[in-house]
């Protein structure tokens, strides 16, 4: 494994964690959108708010992490993707802003109408943001981003069959992960009705994702032959693993193994994220730019890896502590600074 490949792997760890943790937070917003009116959706929204409240900012940092490692390690790729994808990325950036700000605002206001306005903004942008990010992945994976300054087509690079598939899958994965994570949070809360709701949703989105993925095979074969070749060649084991973990997850949901399904669902998503990388190896921007061509010099890559390794020594225990605190069974009287009970 070359130094550049190690850095790419680190970037992909960032992508994976953002997909899993950031994705679940987006998905929580998806379910917030479909939770129904103020009265009917109250319990669901409470659960969602308490589940993602303490962790969403830390989860969001994975996006920054990925961008930063990408522009330091592979500057031409960053410049090419960001400049060609100006439209979906501008919309995604607005989505990130509206979502985070509205979520924070909703928590501290009391008036119902304000909660509804901010809640709608939070929920709608939680769906749109992963969609646009998904269209970008579709465009990159199909070689629609040439190296250079905004050299790709500003529209068709992200409005094409694979991008639409990517956007749909991204939203679906987010909703699915959120349902899988929330079902266990609801169970720990002892909230039986919410457990049933989110279990049904996890099953429904899981099945829907499977169907979309199957349909996607035909889209990719027609629209992205190179990627299709990669996915059915070098990346095939990962694609199969994703399908298997997906199926196992459905079984675990049916059998109410809500802790185990978190693991298998995460593995299913992880496998497909790494499958994408394996599918287009050794290219970063097909067909022009390979990993080695795009990589920064050794001095930069080494300095960054050393810094990140030292950072990991601080961050891994810290992050573990964060999740442990909020996943622990808790004293029901404990309250946060907002006077609320935390859940996750």
């Amino acid at each position, binding site marked *: 494994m070359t130094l550049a490949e190690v850095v790419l792997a680190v970037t992909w760890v960032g992508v994976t964690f953002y997909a899993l943790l950031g994705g679940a937070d987006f998905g929580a917003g998806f379910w917030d959108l479909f939770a129904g009116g103020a009265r009917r959706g109250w319990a669901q929204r409470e659960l969602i708010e308490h589940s993602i409240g303490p962790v969403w900012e830390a989860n969001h*940092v994975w996006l920054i992490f990925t*961008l930063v490692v990408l522009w330091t390690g592979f*500057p031409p790729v960053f410049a090419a993707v960001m400049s060609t994808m100006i439209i979906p990325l501008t919309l995604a950036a607005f989505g990130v*802003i*509206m979502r985070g700000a509205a979520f924070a605002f909703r928590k*501290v206001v009391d008036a119902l109408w304000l909660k509804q306005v901010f809640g709608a903004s939070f929920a709608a942008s939680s769906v749109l943001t992963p969609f646009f990010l998904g269209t970008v992945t579709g465009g990159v994976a199909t070689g629609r981003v040439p190296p250079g300054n905004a050299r790709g087509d500003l529209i068709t690079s992200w409005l094409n069959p694979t991008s639409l598939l990517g956007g749909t899958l991204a939203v679906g994965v987010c909703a699915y992960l959120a349902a899988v994570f929330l079902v266990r949070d609801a169970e720990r809360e002892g909230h039986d009705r919410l457990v049933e709701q989110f279990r049904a949703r996890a099953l429904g989105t899981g099945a829907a994702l499977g169907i979309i993925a199957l349909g996607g095979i035909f889209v990719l074969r027609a629209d992205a032959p190179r990627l299709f070749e990669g996915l059915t060649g070098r990346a095939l084991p990962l694609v199969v693993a994703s399908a298997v973990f997906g199926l196992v997850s459905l079984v675990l949901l049916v059998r109410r193994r809500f802790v185990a399904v978190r693991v298998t669902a995460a593995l299913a998503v992880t496998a497909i994220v790494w499958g994408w990388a394996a599918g287009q190896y050794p290219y970063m921007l097909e067909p022009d730019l390979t990993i080695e061509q*795009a990589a*920064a010099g050794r001095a930069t890559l080494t300095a960054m890896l050393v810094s990140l390794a030292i950072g990991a020594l601080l961050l891994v225990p810290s992050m573990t502590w964060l999740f442990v605190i909020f996943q622990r069974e808790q004293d029901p009287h404990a309250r*946060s600074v*907002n006077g609320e009970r935390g859940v996750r």
Partner: protein
Amino acid sequence: MGPVPSQLPLLAQAAAPNPADLMAARTQMAISLGWHIIIACFGVGFPLLAVFAEWRGFRTGDKVWGTLARRWARAMGVLFAVGAVSGTILSFELGILWPGLMGTYGEVIGLPFAIEGIWFFTEAIFLGIYLYAWDRLPPKVHMLAAVPIVIAGVAGAFSVVAANAWMNQPRGFDLVNGEVTNVDPWAAMFNPATWPQATHMILAAYLVTGFGVASVYAVALLRGRRDRYHRLGFLVPFVFAAALTPVQIGVGDWAAHFVADNQPVKLAAMEGVFETERGAPLHLGGIEIDGELRYAVEIPFGLSLLAHWDPNAEIMGLNEVPPDQHPPVNVVHLSFQTMVAMGTALLGLGAWFAFAWWRRRDLPRSPWFLRFAALSGVAAVVALEAGWVTTEVGRQPWIVYGYLRTADAVSAAPGLRLGLYALLVVYTILTAATIYVLRLMARAPLPVAPQETEPVEPRTLS
């Protein structure tokens, strides 16, 4: 960079951009940076105030401190969330708007950004713990959880400003036939401008937070809410910021000397010096018309003295560089003067307070003190923005001083104006919502938060 195929277009050689699009990109970046920097200041400063109040409450058992700590932490939570997302768009914009900068120099300035990512993680993790596990952790552990937030705020600010400082003092690479080689990312990060700029910015963050929070309580005091809660809410941040103001002015002087020695063109624009001269006067006010500064009050030898500690020191004028390398003098000169004026006014306000406190252990009696104090947060923000305008516009037309012009770094995508218009709409809504929510929070009746068993007892401080 590895061997790049020869057909790969060099990013810096894009066709000359449409001037309106270049201006739109610069405006978009300026608005999103100028917006984020205010919120980011509170991210750096607020945790220190909150944990200080919490610690006092822990030591004294006084409920008023606990109320202050919780209210500050609550506001800090909202501001941190808004700061996290308004900072994200900047990392998008670095690529969306300035691919010529990032594609060529990303490997040179990436390191401080990567390190900042680590600090940002630290802040987000411990903020989640600090805000949401207030009563799940023993008080001492909870207060300790704030320490990483305070450190990460300062260290993160240092890293980001290091990247900006590099644009002023690019180091750590060689440019050979248009190719960046021999990259030394540590030399780039610790370029000579990093120390004065980062120190100046970290202190600025503390001043904005201190005066900003104090302003809110000054308004309450003016409205006659003179209980102990409001007095402490005013005194703690105000004293904190006022005590740092003279330090900041000293650091600002250091930064200005640095500019004088290393970026003489920027200094010439800041001071409105058009012809190189010895014994240069200091200009107060004034405006550039047809290549000279008019209507300024001149203090003889003042600039030479301030910039080089020598009344006869030579100050380089703009005439030394070709006109196409002149920054816009009026913007740079007036914003610099605005920053200095605001800093001086805040120094005066602090001195007024210190005098009254020394004489009678109380706030100055004049209602004008509180009126000015109520404006001190605005003044600190104006100084902050003016300072950034000075350093950023003063570097123009360069994005990387002496190496890359802003016009050569901008995206080649057409219609950048549309992005600016969209941003204006989004940020107008965001600004309105943020102000509205913060006002709601400031006006919320004093808790009786669920965790407070007894109401806050109004008492006077002294």
